[in-house]
């Protein structure tokens, strides 16, 4: 038979009451704070996991704000380039209108004045800022005005840098485009070579922009001159290449208006009646800025018409405006793709954030159903322990003697 010391009855009951009260308090705190994990040691695995997930969640939130910032800059660039597109289209319409043979010089001058205003507007657009004083198209030098008129034409003072923004854990997106790529580096001609009528031409010969007939036969870096001679009413032409001479040589070939002239894999045609001594050049495509294209057009419109010079200049300018338009549209397309990607990343990021929050909530938030049921149960057993304690300690033989 086990003897029980009177002290043990008190001690063990007090210990049991203490333990029950501790548990009750813990549950009560879980309910009051809404947190299942009051300290990390309540569930070390869950707590460490919660720490990692809340970091991932915070990083994800940061990426969302990075995306907002990138979206702002990209949308701003997109709307600027939209304005540039319509401006180039306007300039293109004006150029076509200027080609109308019925216009006199004052009519052309009016168009030139209009184009001058367009050019200024274009410069303004190219120098757009993001509202915080950062130029959109100056690359890394966001505080340097990128496009400034110089004696040598429009100068670019930014750089090729594309600012990157961390838009997702493993994706850095360019939030800007170099102004040089958008406005300056526009290949003239057809992208491989550019044709041009020489300035002093007096005839009505108009050269086409040409095309590449045989890419394999192209001689990189070579320039060509097509020069005309008119002898005894017969127009013939000679093609010379530099620095690599043409082989076989093309000299004294009779000219037929509109007939294809082919050499070194290229094909051009000249229409009209070139005068004796007129010449046309075919050179590898070089970069021409949209500013130069428009200002060249303005110069051509302001100059007196000699022979086909206006037609040639307008033809060249029109072609070049198309190139510029293509260039801007290409950039806008990449902007659109990036904005689309941002939207996709945004959805993915939001889903991930939701996932993080759910996991986090599972790990560290109180399950109220369970907690309240626990509380009721613990409350009941504490009350039972208290009542039974009183009953057990009330029993004493001393009550009867």
């Amino acid at each position: 038979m086990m003897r029980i010391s009177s002290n043990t009855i008190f001690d063990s009951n007090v210990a049991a009451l203490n333990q029950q009260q501790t548990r009750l308090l813990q549950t009560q705190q879980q309910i009051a704070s809404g947190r299942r994990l009051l300290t990390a040691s309540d569930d070390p695995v869950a707590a460490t996991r919660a720490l990692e997930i809340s970091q991932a969640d915070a990083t994800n939130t940061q990426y969302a704000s990075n995306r907002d910032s990138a979206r702002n800059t990209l949308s701003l660039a997109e709307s600027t380039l939209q304005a540039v597109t319509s401006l180039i289209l306007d300039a293109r319409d004006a150029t076509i209108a200027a080609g109308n043979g019925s216009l006199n010089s004052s009519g052309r001058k009016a168009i030139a004045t209009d184009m001058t205003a367009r050019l200024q507007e274009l410069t303004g657009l190219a120098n757009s800022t993001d509202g915080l004083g950062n130029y959109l198209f100056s690359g890394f030098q966001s505080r340097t005005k990128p496009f400034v008129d110089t004696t040598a034409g429009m100068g670019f003072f930014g750089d090729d840098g594309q600012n990157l923004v961390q838009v997702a854990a493993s994706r850095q997106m360019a939030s800007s485009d170099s102004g040089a790529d958008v406005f300056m580096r526009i290949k003239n001609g057809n992208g491989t070579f550019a044709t041009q009528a020489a300035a002093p031409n007096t005839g009505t010969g108009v050269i086409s922009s040409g095309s590449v007939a045989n890419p394999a036969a192209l001689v990189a870096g070579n320039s060509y001159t097509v020069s005309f001679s008119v002898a005894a009413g017969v127009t013939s032409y000679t093609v010379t290449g530099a620095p690599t001479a043409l082989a076989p040589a093309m000299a004294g070939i009779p000219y037929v208006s509109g007939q294809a002239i082919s050499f070194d894999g290229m094909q051009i045609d000249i229409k009209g009646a070139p005068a004796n001594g007129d010449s046309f050049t075919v050179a590898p495509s070089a970069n021409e800025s949209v500013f130069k294209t428009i200002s060249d057009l303005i110069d051509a419109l302001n100059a007196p018409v000699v022979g086909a010079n206006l037609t040639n200049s307008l033809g060249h300018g029109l072609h070049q405006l198309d190139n510029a338009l293509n260039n801007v549209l290409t950039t806008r397309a990449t902007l659109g793709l990036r904005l689309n990607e941002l939207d996709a990343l945004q959805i993915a990021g939001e889903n991930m954030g939701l996932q993080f929050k759910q996991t986090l909530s599972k790990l560290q938030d109180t399950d109220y159903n369970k907690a309240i049921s626990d509380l009721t149960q613990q409350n009941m057993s504490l009350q039972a322990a208290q009542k039974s304690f009183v009953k057990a300690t009330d029993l004493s033989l001393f009550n009867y003697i």
Partner: protein
Amino acid sequence: MADLFTSALSGMNAAQLGVATTQHNIANASTPGFTRQQILVSSRAGQQTGAGFVGQGVDVTGVIRIYDQFLNTQVLQEQNQASYLTAYHSAIAQVDLLIADPDAGAAPAMQSFFDAMNAVATSPTSTTARAALLSSAQIAIDRFQAIDQSLTDMADGLTGQITGSVNTVNSYAQQIAVLNGSIKRAIASGQGQQPNDLIDQRDQAISQLNQEVKTTVLRQADGTASVFIGNGQALVLDEQAMRLQVIQSANDPSKVDIAYLNNGRTVVLQQSSLQGGKMGAYLTFRDQTLEPARNALGRVALGMAVSINQQNQLGQEPPPTGALGGNLFNEAAPRVDQNANNNPASGKPSVTIANLAGLTTSDYRLTFNGAGYTLLRLSDNTTTNYANLPQTVDGMTITAPAPVTAGDSFLIRPTANGARDIALVTNDPNKIAAAAPIRTATVANTGTGTISSGTVNAPPPPHANLQDTVTITFDTPTTYTVAGAVPPVVGAQAYVSGQSISYNGWTVQITGTRAVNDEFTIESNIGGTDGRNALLLAGLQTQTLMANGTASLQGVYGQLVGEVAVKTSELAVTSLAQDNMVAQTIAAQQAVSGVNLDEEAANLIRYQNAYQAAAKAMQIAQTMFDAILAINP
């Protein structure tokens, strides 16, 4: 006839002693350490008569304690373990609360810092974003320092607690020694009767002492108890108590050791010999939780300071200075302490941080034996021998002390001050080198080749000619010449698209079709206001820079939180279990030695009845005697 009186009187006496002992038990029912007492009675030998042996009453031969030595020893052991676990648990729970708090821990502060860095990367020209970054850096620093300060305060508090524990031990040792004397003399004068209550008091003192430090008790024939601690150091022998003392540690002036005073000699007790009890808990907590936690926190802070500084040095400050970046944070130097017993003329080894990945949270002891050095990693007791220094080990470079004497030893704590000494070295938002110092350009090329924007090679400092203009010219589509590189590059270099090209401390890649005479330039980004370097700075958050490239900064902080949490949870569970164990052993011990009031009540009635019966017997004897006297002859 007189025998009747004697016999009745002995019964009354015995019952009276029984009541007295019962009352003593009742009075001491809740006295700590009290063991219930009983009278030992035996019947007197009978007187031989013609009718046989007639009983002569009862004798009380002694008052004994009801006591089980085995159960008592078990209670001592369990209580020692319980007080160790409880003290350890309540100490570590503070650390657990401190570092894992979702609002006040270092994790959210580091997160805000990197968020702010991301904001700078996105808007490098925004002064507001830069100022916000500095302010969040300051908040992170404050957080590191506050946690470190709390840990240091705990360590200081522990020194007080250890001193208190040593004083308690000394005081109980003194009490035991005094009680030993009293007990010895009481036994001698009581002709072998045990002084029960003195023995209870001494056992209670031993039990209290045992909650401070683990003891071994030997009971001697003369009634005294010898108490030993540690590896058999006598604390109490007979009537003599030895003293423990708190002294400054020879290895580490910031810590205390416990020493044993014996005949004027001071012997430092090894921590391993002082296990169990509160004292063991304090020492274990200090050496195995608090210091590693401080080191781990220091490692996180140091990792942040060093990695941010290094990357900032690879960047460029915004205009107008456009200078190469410098340090943003103060990097804490490893702490080196000389052993107090070193030759006073000896120097200290100089220790510098060599790489973050190798750093551990351990402390190290470097000893010189006259011919070479031995480095002991204290966390796992790994030793490495070196014939000479400097050596780079575990992310630190140790340079030999000069002069050095054989037998010198040094305590090296690489990251201990990491969190305490982290600070911002600048308040200038423009010192954040958000831009990269170089940029690349292609202007008049006819090919479609593109060049990457270029990266600066780690580690800092950057190449002296980093920002010189270098031109890469393709003389054929597959070979290039380089102008401006230091040292100069002679001759054509073969090129493979996308391959890294590295000169003057930068690296670029060129991809796409290159035409003859295409030129790519790498030049100074002076005036640049991009956020390329800030992007790299922000990227440090997720890089596994620490723990041999296995964990990020926040990862190693998470490890610290996890380790402390696991230990705390383990202690919470084991200390609760141990408390229950103690309760059970005490219940078992009390079942033998404790007072049951019902039993005592029954005994009171029993002795009262016995007394009344004996008195009645006396009365009957009296009546019988009177009857004889009344006979009138």
